[in-house]
C-alpha cells in the first residue's frame, strides 16, 4: 500500500503530446478513477505509473520515493488488463503463482496463497484448469487474483470490465470494489464509462485531451462540474448563459432565460468566481416535466415535447422552450408524455450549479 504522486508529468509520442503537465495524487488505500473519453491519455498515465512507458518529463513518486528509473519488474505493482492477459500455456494455479516465484515464496506457501486468492475472488477449485476453459467473467477474477496475490503497493486496472457484457459488468464492479475495500490497496482504475466511475470511486479524475479537467469525489464532480466538458461528460446536461443579478451572504441570484430568477447556495457557485455572467448547468435528470399548470412555489416554464427516447422505466425527452432545446430524463409515472405534448418544465435550483464563462 502506498500513496502515488505524479508531479508535472508529461508524455509525448513524437509530436503528439498525450499528457500535458499534470499533478495528480492517488491517496494511500483509496480507489481513484481516471475518467475521460477515448484518447485523452488515461492509459498513458497508467502505463507511466506501471513503468511500461517512460514519462517525457516530471516525476513519479510511490510511497514518497521517486521511481522514474526503477524498471517495471522491481516496482511491485498489480496490473489488470482489459483482455486479462492470462498466460494461455499455464494453468490457473500457475498463472496466479507466477509473481510469487520471483518473490522467493516456496511451493507450499505459494499453493496456500493461490487458494486464498481464489477464495477472495470467489472462484475456488479451478486451480488445474487452463484460462481458455473459463468464461470472461471468471478470467477477469483470475486476472484480479494474480494481481493481488503478490500484495502489490498499487493496483492498476485498465478498463478491466469493458470486455464483459452489461449484466456481468455491473455485478463485477460491485465485486471489484468490495475486493479492493477488503484488501485496502491503493487502486488506480481507468475507464471511459461514467456510471462505472461514479459507482466505484473514492475520487474521480476527469481528463480531456491530455489534461486534468477536475478532481473530486463522485458527488462533487457530478453535482458541481468545474467545466462545460465535465458537465457534458458526466451525464447529459442543459447549459444556458445566465446573468448574475445579485449576491447574498452565501447565495447567488441568477437570471435564467425562460425560467426567471433563481437563487443558488454559494456552494454551487464556487466555479463562478466573481464573474457577472456565467453558465448554468441543469442536469437532464433534474429537469421535471409536469402536466398542466406549473405547481405553486416552483421555478418553471412551459415547453413542447419534440421527441421521446423511451428507455423502459426512464424516458429521455427533448423539449423545446422558446428557441432552445432542453433534455429531460424522467422516471415514467404511468404513461410517458407523447410527442407534441405541452408540458411545464420544473427546475429545482438546489440541483443546479453555475460555472464562469470560459474565455
Amino acid at each position, binding site marked *: 500500500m502506498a500513496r502515488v504522486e505524479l508531479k508535472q508529468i508529461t508524455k509525448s509520442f513524437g509530436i503528439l503530446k498525450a499528457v500535458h503537465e499534470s499533478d495528480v495524487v492517488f491517496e494511500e488505500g483509496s480507489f481513484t478513477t481516471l475518467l475521460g473519453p477515448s484518447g485523452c491519455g488515461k492509459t498513458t498515465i497508467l502505463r507511466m505509473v506501471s513503468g511500461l512507458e517512460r514519462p517525457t518529463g516530471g516525476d513519479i513518486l510511490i510511497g514518497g520515493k521517486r521511481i522514474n528509473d526503477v524498471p517495471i519488474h522491481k516496482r511491485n505493482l498489480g*496490473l489488470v488488463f482489459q483482455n486479462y492477459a492470462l498466460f494461455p500455456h499455464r494453468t490457473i494455479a500457475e498463472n496466479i503463482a507466477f509473481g510469487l516465484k520471483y518473490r522467493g515464496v516456496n511451493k507450499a506457501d505459494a499453493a496456500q496463497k493461490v487458494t486464498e486468492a481464489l477464495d477472495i475472488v470467489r472462484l475456488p477449485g479451478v486451480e488445474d484448469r487452463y484460462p481458455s476453459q473459463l468464461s470472461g467473467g471468471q478470467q477477469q477474477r483470475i486476472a484480479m487474483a494474480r494481481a493481488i496475490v503478490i500484495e502489490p503497493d498499487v493496483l492498476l486496472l485498465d478498463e478491466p470490465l469493458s470486455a464483459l457484457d452489461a449484466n456481468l459488468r455491473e455485478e463485477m464492479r460491485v465485486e471489484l470494489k468490495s475486493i479492493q475495500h477488503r484488501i485496502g490497496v491503493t487502486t488506480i482504475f481507468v475507464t471511459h464509462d461514467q456510471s462505472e466511475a461514479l459507482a466505484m470511486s473514492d475520487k474521480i479524475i476527469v481528463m480531456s485531451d491530455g489534461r486534468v479537467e477536475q478532481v473530486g469525489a463522485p458527488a462533487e464532480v457530478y453535482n458541481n462540474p468545474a467545466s462545460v466538458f465535465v458537465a457534458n461528460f458526466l451525464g447529459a446536461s442543459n447549459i444556458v448563459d445566465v446573468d448574475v443579478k445579485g449576491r447574498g451572504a452565501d447565495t447567488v441570484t441568477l437570471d435564467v432565460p425562460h425560467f426567471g430568477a433563481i437563487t443558488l447556495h454559494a456552494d454551487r457557485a464556487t466555479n463562478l468566481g466573481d464573474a457577472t455572467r456565467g453558465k448554468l448547468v441543469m442536469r437532464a435528470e433534474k429537469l421535471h416535466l409536469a402536466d398542466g399548470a406549473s405547481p405553486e412555489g416552483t421555478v418553471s416554464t412551459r415547453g413542447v415535447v419534440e421527441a421521446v427516447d423511451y428507455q423502459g422505466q426512464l424516458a429521455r425527452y427533448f423539449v423545446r422552450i422558446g428557441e432552445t432545446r432542453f433534455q429531460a430524463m424522467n422516471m415514467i409515472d404511468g404513461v410517458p408524455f407523447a410527442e407534441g405534448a405541452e408540458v411545464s418544465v420544473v427546475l429545482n435550483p438546489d440541483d443546479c450549479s453555475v460555472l464562469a464563462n470560459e474565455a
Partner: protein
Amino acid sequence: MSAWAFIRFYTILVYTFMFAPIAVVLLLAFNNSQFGGFPIDGLSLRWFAELFENEAIMRAFRTSFILGLMTAAVATTVGILAALALVRYQFRGKDWVTTFLISPVLVPETVLAVGLLIFLRWLHMPRSFTLLLLGHSIIALPFVVLVVQARLVGIRREYEEAARSLGASPVQTFFSVTFPLLLPAIFAGALFAFTISFDNITATIFWRPSGMETVPTQIFGMLRHSVSPEINALGFVMICITVGVPLLAGGLARYFSRRKV
C-alpha cells in the same frame, strides 16, 4: 468431351508427369536387377544393404545430417532474435533490415553462392565446413524469420507486460512466456531450416571444400558415371526423410497442442 472432363484429364496428366518419376525411383529401389528398368524381376532390399555398406554415401549422410542440425540451430537462434527485434522494438532502418534478412529468398541461389565465394576470396579465407554452415544458415534464415515473426505478431504484448509487472526480468519474461508461446513456430522454423539444408545442392556445390560431400552432391557425383540402382535406394531414403520429418513434426505439434489446452 465436356470442358470439365478435359480439365480432369489434363490435371491427371500433369500430376502423373510430376509424380511418375518419383514413383519410378521408389519402385526401382526394390528391384532385384542389376540394371534398373522395367519390368521388375523380383523384389529385394539388396540396394539398401549396399547403401549402408558404401562408406562414401554413409559419410555424405553424416555430413548432411550434422550440417542440417547445425543449420537449424544457427538459423533458429538468429531467426528468433531477429524476429523479436523486428516485432517488439522500434529502431531506425527497420525496413532495410527486414529486406536484408529476407533477400536470400529473392536472390537467385547461384548469385548468392558466387557472391559469398568472392567475398571469402577477398578475405583470403579458404572454403570450409564453417562457410558451408554459414551459407546454409543464410539461405534458411528468411524462412525462420518469417515463421517466427508471423507467430510473434499474434502474441499480444500484454502477456509479456503482465509477466514483467509480476516481477519477471526481461530475460525471465522471454523464457517463461514468450518462448513457450513461440514454441510451435520455432519448431516449424527449425524443421524448415533442416530440410532446406538437407536437400540444398546448387549453393552447396559452390561452397563445399574439396573432398566433402553432402547427400545431394554425392548423388549428383554418382549420376555422372552411371545410374546405379543404389541411387534409387538413396532417393527412397531421401524422400522418406524430407517428407517424413515434417509430417512427423506436424503430428507431434498437434498432439502437444491438444494435450496442453
